[in-house]
């Protein structure tokens, strides 16, 4: 079994998941692919039944953070050391994975994707500035300055057993930055490409959701 896995949290991605996985398999045949179906209500689970893929199902929807943590726990039990978190909606660019994994294996604990060092295709103006503003929030809450603090594309060395995500929903992105500080993880940002399509924009987080995520994150920290 490979020591590297691509993790895909999936919730109602029946239109894109097959294409995303087939591309990943073609480009990275040596990597394990772990899909966590987070209680999808459409046909995603059947669409994700692709030869060679590890498929895990949450019987109810818990959230992206929970799906990633499930995949991490599963990967740890399979002695997988390196993971890449990859969206199932086709937003991320499979070509970026190679460099991220190489950088991670060169001695980093986590490699964070940055759409502002790379490309953010078709990003809305409001979203762009809101994401930039969120860097300030991240800086004040963790002391870590990033160019893109809420990017779902990242490579992580999961050999530290204390790397545990407790935030079930989208606040896990901020929690990861907290863990970088708490666990003194060696990190680096790398450029990546995020492709905003009509489909991904429809499924993605709105600005109002983002406020909910901030509140969820603050409550999470207070009740930790």
């Amino acid at each position, binding site marked *: 079994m490979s020591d590297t896995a691509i993790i895909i949290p999936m919730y109602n991605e029946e239109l894109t998941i097959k294409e995303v996985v087939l591309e990943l398999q073609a480009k990275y045949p040596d990597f394990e692919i772990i899909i*966590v179906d987070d209680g999808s209500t459409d046909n995603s689970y059947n669409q994700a*039944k*692709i*030869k*060679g*893929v*590890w*498929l*895990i*199902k*949450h*019987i*109810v929807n*818990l959230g992206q953070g*929970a799906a990633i*943590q*499930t995949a991490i*726990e*599963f990967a740890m*039990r399979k002695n997988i050391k390196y993971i890449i978190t990859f969206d199932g909606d086709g937003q991320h660019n499979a070509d970026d994975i190679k460099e991220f994994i190489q950088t991670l294996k060169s001695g980093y604990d986590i490699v964070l994707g940055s759409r502002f060092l790379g490309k953010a295709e078709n990003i809305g103006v409001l979203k762009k500035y809101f994401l930039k503003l969120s860097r300030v929030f991240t800086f004040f809450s963790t002391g870590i300055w990033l160019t893109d603090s809420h990017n779902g594309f990242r490579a992580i060395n999961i050999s530290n057993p204390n790397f545990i995500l407790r935030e*079930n929903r989208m606040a896990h992105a901020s929690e990861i930055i907290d863990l970088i500080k708490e666990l003194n993880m060696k990190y680096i940002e790398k450029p990546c490409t995020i492709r905003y399509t009509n489909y991904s924009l429809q499924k993605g987080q709105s600005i109002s959701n983002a406020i909910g995520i901030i509140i969820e994150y603050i409550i999470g920290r207070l*009740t930790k």
Partner: protein
Amino acid sequence: MIIVKIFLLFLLTLGFVIFGFSIKLKNFQRLVVIFGYFTLFIFIINPSLSDKVAHFFGIGLGSSLVIYITIGVISLLNIILFVDTKMNKDAITKIVREMGIEHAKKI
């Protein structure tokens, strides 16, 4: 006025019974809830008493004292419910995760 009092007492008692018997409380929390219940119960039956107690504490109006106690009790109940919900949510997450991993399969 009697009907309003009966209705309020009914609501207060119902809330107290549901809360007191459906959620596991710590001793301190139980004491606050019991104190809040009986205080509000007495103030509903005898509103003028709240003026005397309020005066004793230098608050002025009895109705203000009732509002303060209510805010305190409701806030505590809110926190207790939040913690209880969070514990349930964490347990559900653990169960769903274990089930998922246990039934994971390579296609």
